[in-house]
């Protein structure tokens, strides 16, 4: 339960609640937002970044932890893996069993390709499963894909690649329909109208949801469909390196059985990297809302083969991670909590900013409140601000929380915090990598013409910040597209002799740059085990 000091602050929150109800805090001007970001957003902390010394993005910066992995060698450099002994031979190899990978596999299968999924943990162990709030699509009468484009483009600081963003917004309604037809249970009213709300930075209510289990409902449906189609899924089988051929194409991947540590070889005419994000790298020491396997593996694999990164220096910190209690520290408190009425309130009970600014702005606002302004709430773990959840039922009536955000209610109730009666404490948490491997509008990397990327491993769809509900959307849109494109491409690919020459070349490049981290990459799993000796 809350400390006495925290309870003192709760009294102030309660005292101002009636006055705050029905008053929408002012939104910041563009200039105010720019100034706030520059001063408080973690992306602007120069000491947290380092220069990439090798490869296609040489001279650019990235988070130190990512640079360390980019500067490390392949673990296969010192291993003798006979890649001529092929364990799997497929048209389409999907690396990653999250929402993007599953969507890709389903569409590739639908197109008649021989497709398989390899995944580090289980199919569905992915950030998709943990996405709570919803998925955007402009399907209401007052909305349009063009409006969606404007919101996302502006929210991403006008840096999104237009050809990618076009696909995202134009194919969004079809993505929702595809999911609906697979049996995803979207929140609808009795006439079938989708119940949609705002997310931070949206100008229309286009956030579709499945309570606050939106990603879980989508993921378990996709997983069920993959299994129904009997698409082979190799679980606990991690791709540790891409294989190329003497024609400059990707030709498959070297895999490792995570449990036995034996190596396997998958030969493939096309490869889709759908490995997700990087939250478990804990950039700048932040806690994360991400799943256990989010360690940027795909970025390393692609980069080592020569595929460039884009916006690898921009990270999304979700404004509302759990700040207390310690057991769920850093866990996601969905933006939907604000969509349905909760305000951000400081230690004195003041609503210090509009609750639905874009995520980078909201996160920066919270950091400012807790640092420069000294109006955060002290906790045994640090500080945070209140998310005034009792407002939700004042606005929506009793039962709203249980109906609309049951996962949040359940998560806190395990620690005897009833968010219907008490506000909850939040602080930004590492949530999403805005950057990733660069692709063209067709989903292929620009340097290797049979290598595709989909989902969070892609950079450029959203620009330098992403709106809520556009990631669940992008994994479906770009996952489906990658599956179709890979299946079509595979018909025209002739593979040459397979080799791993690129890891030697990369090692040479590192040597020339005088870099020796002493580590190998990709990371595969975070190092959480504590060893006393």
């Amino acid at each position, binding site marked *: 339960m809350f400390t006495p000091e925290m309870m003192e602050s709760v009294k102030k929150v309660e005292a101002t609640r009636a006055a705050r109800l029905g008053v929408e805090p002012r939104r910041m001007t563009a200039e105010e937002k720019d100034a706030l970001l520059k001063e408080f957003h973690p992306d602007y902390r120069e000491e947290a970044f380092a220069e990439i010394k090798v490869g296609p993005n040489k001279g650019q910066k990235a988070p130190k932890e990512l640079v360390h992995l980019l500067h490390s060698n392949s673990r296969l450099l010192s291993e003798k893996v006979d890649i001529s002994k092929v364990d799997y031979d497929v048209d389409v190899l999907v690396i990653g069993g999250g929402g993007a990978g599953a969507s890709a596999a389903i569409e590739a299968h639908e197109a008649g390709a021989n497709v398989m999924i390899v995944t580090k*943990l289980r199919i569905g162990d992915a950030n998709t499963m943990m996405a709570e709030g919803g998925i955007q699509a402009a399907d209401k009468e007052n909305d349009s894909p063009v409006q969606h*484009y404007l919101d996302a483009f502006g929210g991403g600081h006008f840096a999104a690649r237009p050809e990618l963003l076009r696909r995202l917004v134009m194919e969004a309604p079809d993505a929702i329909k595809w999911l609906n037809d697979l*049996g995803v249970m979207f929140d609808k009213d009795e006439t079938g*109208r989708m119940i949609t709300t705002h997310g931070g930075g949206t100008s229309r209510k286009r956030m579709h949801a499945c309570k606050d289990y939106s990603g879980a409902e989508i993921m378990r449906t996709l997983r069920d469909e993959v299994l129904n189609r009997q698409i082979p899924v190799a679980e606990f089988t991690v791709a540790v390196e891409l294989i190329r051929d003497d024609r400059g194409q990707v030709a498959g991947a070297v895999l490792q059985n995570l449990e036995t540590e034996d190596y396997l070889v998958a030969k493939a005419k096309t490869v889709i990297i759908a490995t997700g994000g990087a939250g478990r790298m804990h950039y700048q020491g932040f806690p994360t*809302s991400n*799943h256990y396997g989010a360690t940027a593996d795909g970025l390393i694999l692609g980069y080592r083969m020569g595929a460039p990164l884009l916006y690898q220096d921009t990270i999304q910190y979700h404004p509302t991670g759990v700040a207390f209690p310690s057991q769920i520290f850093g866990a996601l408190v969905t933006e939907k909590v604000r969509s349905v009425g909760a305000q951000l309130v400081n230690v004195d009970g003041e609503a210090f900013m509009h609750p639905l600014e874009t995520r980078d702005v909201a996160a920066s606002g919270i950091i400012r409140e807790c640092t420069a302004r000294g109006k955060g709430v002290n906790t045994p773990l640090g500080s945070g601000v209140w998310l005034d959840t009792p407002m939700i039922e004042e606005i929506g009536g009793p039962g709203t929380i249980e109906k609309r955000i049951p996962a949040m209610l359940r998560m806190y109730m395990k620690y005897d915090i009833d968010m219907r009666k008490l506000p909850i404490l939040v602080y930004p948490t590492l949530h999403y990598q805005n950057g990733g491997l660069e692709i063209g509008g067709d989903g292929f990397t620009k340097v290797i013409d049979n290598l595709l990327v989909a989902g969070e491993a892609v950079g450029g769809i959203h620009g330098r910040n992403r709106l809520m509900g556009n990631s669940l959307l992008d994994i479906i849109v770009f996952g489906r597209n990658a599956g179709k494109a890979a299946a079509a491409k595979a018909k025209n690919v002739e593979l040459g002799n397979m080799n791993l020459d690129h890891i030697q070349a990369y090692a040479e490049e590192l040597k020339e740059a005088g870099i020796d981290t002493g580590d190998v990459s990709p990371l595969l799993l975070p190092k959480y085990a504590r060893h006393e000796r």
Partner: protein
Amino acid sequence: MENMVNVYFFGKKYSVPADLTIMTAMEYAGYTLKRGCGCRHGFCGACATIYRIKGKNELKTCLACQTQVEEGMYVATVPFFPTDKRTYDIEDIKPEQRVMMDLYPEIYSCIGCNACTKACTQDLNVMQYIAYAQRGDFEKCAEESFDCIGCGCCSVRCPAGISHPMVGVLARRLTGKYIAPESKHLTERVEEIHHGDYDQLIEQIMQKPITEMQELYNNREIEK
């Protein structure tokens, strides 16, 4: 000195800080988790766990990532359980009672012991949703099972060998696809896009210079 408790992982004793979860306590003890660890935030069901408190008779089920350690806790993780998912073509089946009869006939062997409900880490009324499935009331089954994360603790405890989470998935897919009313606004928008109604408009906005986009963005009207 931190407040420590004694816990037993697979029977072996470790002293761990009392404010940790079972999962973080295992890592504190030196385990590198491969299985039995997924999202770490209570959404994926990877970390189904069984425990008993020393001296007590009751066997409890939980998620290792969502449960705080207690003194005298004997812990066994259940990283995998052979639940039985039946395959089907969602386009071919219909929301009729016989679907369950065909795919998951063992639900009719339920003896009403309610062990599934007691084992549920999400506090769902599992036996009730199986009862709805038996009757072919897919919508109620879907609603009642909606918060299921598929950890499988129910199936571990079921004397009838029912794979409850799989029954829930089937009911939800039937409900989402066939029973929930069609979203006409969605169907229409998809048709408009396929018809090319937005092609020109999207081309236009893609071509606009950044300064004009900034102007449009900063002055756009926001729906109340």
